[in-house]
């Protein structure tokens, strides 16, 4: 039970910081960053929030069904311009994967060959 209160408390803090202090990040993201810091520094023990956290993450799918269903009344808007949407949705993941994967792999290889050189020298 206390785990739930901690998560809701951090969510409340994040939302408040977004609404009142005008921090230009989503409230939930601010809450996540603050909780990560609290967990990293050991201010809050991992075990305390682990149960509530894994429950929320496991059922994330349920939480966004109403959002996707909310599209139905707007299907007309989407159907007006299907082409750019389809192209963007298919090309996006291709580009992102090649960019992100390529950068990580290249930097990882560079690091490995540098440490190899150091070992040989």
């Amino acid at each position, binding site marked *: 039970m206390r785990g739930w209160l901690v998560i809701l408390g951090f969510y409340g803090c994040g939302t408040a910081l977004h609404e009142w202090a005008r921090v230009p990040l989503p409230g939930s993201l601010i809450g996540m960053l603050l909780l990560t810091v609290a967990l990293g520094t050991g201010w809050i023990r991992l075990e305390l929030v682990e149960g509530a956290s894994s429950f*929320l993450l496991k059922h994330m799918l349920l939480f966004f069904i109403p959002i*996707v269903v909310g599209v139905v009344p707007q299907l007309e808007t989407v159907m007006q311009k299907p082409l750019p949407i389809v192209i963007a949705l298919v090309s996006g993941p291709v580009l*992102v994967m090649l960019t992100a994967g390529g950068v990580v792999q290249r930097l990882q290889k560079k690091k490995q060959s540098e440490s190899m050189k150091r070992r040989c020298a």
Partner: protein
Amino acid sequence: MLGAMAICLTIFMYICARPLSERLFRIQPILIAAAGVGLIWWLFSGDWQSYAKGGSYISFWLGPATVALAVPLAKQLRQLARVWRAVAAGVAAGSAASMLSAWMLMKLLDGGETLTRSILSKSVTTPISVELTAGIGGNPSLAGLFTALTGIVGISIARPLLKGAGITDDWALGIAIGTSSHAIGTAGLLRHSQEQAAASSLAMILSGIITSVYFIPLQYL
């Protein structure tokens, strides 16, 4: 009354979606659930405002679920320390590629203002994507749909694409899939490799953070 019906129907379809997905060519459960709820509500009520009211009690929990991502992130902090440079660069470049390509395509093909503002966050995990879109005047429901579809496209093409491009490193693979197709991609990886799935969930969280930073200037446009 209708609101309570909306909540019950949504939970019921959520429970049915997983077994149905296994019978229906593994169509993503989220699409089955959303289509099922949409169809049943359309047949029996058609009052979308009442559905939205009831549904908001469920979608509220996306916020706390985002906060809950702090737990896997905190668990991986130590591992991240060794590779953070490559990971941060990869996620930052990938997130930028996602937003820039979507924006240019929508401009070139005349996609319209609302659609453009709703599609920019498509690679980010859904709860963050929805909130980011609301913040820049897009349509959160469209963003939710685009995000789910992006994840599905991503995980369907990931293996052959990355193999063809010669990306085989565990970290590189996981980061590529997490940055492009968030939780749906991560769930798809879990069946193959724990290491890749861990890298993917980390990339999903980091791309949420980095994209939120990219969105800061957009709020003022």
